[in-house]
């Protein structure tokens, strides 16, 4: 064994923590080496001084508190990827709104189509009726022009306001 390895093991030798064979090797070396004898003596003095220091008393629930923290830490880490509940709710609400937009738009288009469809249909029917040579053109035109106005979005004319012409 080299002198460096012996000096590395001196602390463990002093505390009697080495295996028996290594204890014997260190003892034999120290008996012949003055430097290691000095080193050993210095270590022994240091240990004696440390042993005189007062040992602080641990709180009685130290162990419980320690384990509690140990258990908490991994749990917090596991849920860290989730946002705050308020943020999560806002995100869900936004997603619902975005999903509802096409549905609402489709429903409104359907209602708008229902509103103007009679006018569109009567307007496209009138040229067919005009094939009747004895049909009154002014009459056909009156019905067609009223339908035109609804189709271009002018609600002021139409049968709902027909009372003005009684």
């Amino acid at each position, binding site marked *: 064994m080299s002198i460096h390895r012996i000096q590395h093991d001196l602390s463990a030798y002093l505390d009697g923590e080495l295996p028996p064979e290594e204890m014997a090797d260190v003892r034999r070396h120290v008996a012949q080496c003055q430097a290691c004898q000095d080193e050993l003596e210095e270590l022994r003095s240091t240990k004696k001084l440390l042993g005189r220091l007062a040992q602080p008393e641990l709180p009685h629930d130290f162990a419980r508190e320690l384990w509690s923290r140990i258990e908490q830490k991994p749990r917090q880490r596991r849920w860290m990827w989730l946002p705050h509940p308020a943020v999560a709710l806002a995100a869900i609400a936004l997603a619902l709104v975005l999903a509802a937009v096409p549905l609402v738009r489709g429903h409104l288009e359907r209602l708008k189509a229902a509103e103007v*469809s009679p006018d569109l249909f009567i307007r496209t029917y*009138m040229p067919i009726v005009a094939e009747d040579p*004895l049909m*009154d*053109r002014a*009459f056909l035109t009156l*019905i067609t022009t009223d339908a*035109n106005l609804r189709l*271009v979005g002018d609600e002021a004319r139409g049968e709902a*306001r027909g009372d003005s012409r009684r």
Partner: protein
Amino acid sequence: MRRIGSMAVVASACAAVVLLSPGPAWMQTGTQGTRMLGGVTVAQIVTHALLAAQTVDYEGTKVLSVLRGPLMETVTVNEAHKRPNRMRLEFLSPEGVAGRLVVDDGVQTWHYEPRIHTVIQGPSLGAPIDVRTDRWMERHTVKLLGVEEVIGRTTAVLSIQPREGRGERRLWIDRTTGIALRTEDRDPADGLVATTYFTRISYALNIPDALFRPRFPAGAPVVSPTEPSRPLVAVGALEKAVGFRVIVPPSLPGGFTLQGGEPVTGGPVTAARLHYSDGARALALFVAPAGRLGPPGRGAAIAALGPQARALGWGGTRMVQWESRGQRLTLVGQLPLGDLISLAETIAPPR
């Protein structure tokens, strides 16, 4: 533009002058073959009326009364007509329509609405110029009811009914010109549903061509609320054009046969239009998916066609709209409402 041969014009004018001479025999009544009015047949009077638009120019003031829902509406217009099928209408009253101007050059119609300062373009509503009188007579029953004076002019009063079906139109035909000075549409259920009559009329005027050209106040935008389409013969082509399956009955009860179909598009509505005719009356069946076209928000409820079915009327023109097998169906025709509902039930019973 369609043109009429000069032979027809001359023939009609001759018929007016030679055949319709006044006399006491006018007070007779009769049907097509009966000779009356000094040897003139009802068929000749009808011919005279059918060709009148192509032989006479006129300008006059006309009063229109139309039953719309429960209300009879009355509108006054100045009407100018130039051969063969050009028309100009200036709406005078009531206040809601005053200033409305319509010019029809025989190919297209321009409707100027002063309230919204807009011109709305559409197809012509001019009378056809290739009328076959014999074919028309085959499909109608015509009776001469008598002779009456209208705004100081002698007229023959005709009652016209389709050979099949109900409904009646009465025409007061000017003895000299063949123009209908007064009309009445009668419905078996509602009675009188539409009337028109001239309160004054002037013939043989040199009406300037410029009146029948579209000239409107500066800055008025021109819009077309419907997209142009062309008739499609094959059902597959029609379905491809509209993008959905279409119910196509090849014929309808009462002798109505399919004449053709075409896509109809305007605003948010896309529908397939099927055109049927019995020779005298025209029917249009519009088909659209119920998922795209909601239930109608106006009109009278029709219990026989389901909870969402509605009926609308414009004079003698009726419309019923109902739902069947996921499709919204609309039937439009100049038929009594009861007949139209019966047809609708046959086409597609409500579900």
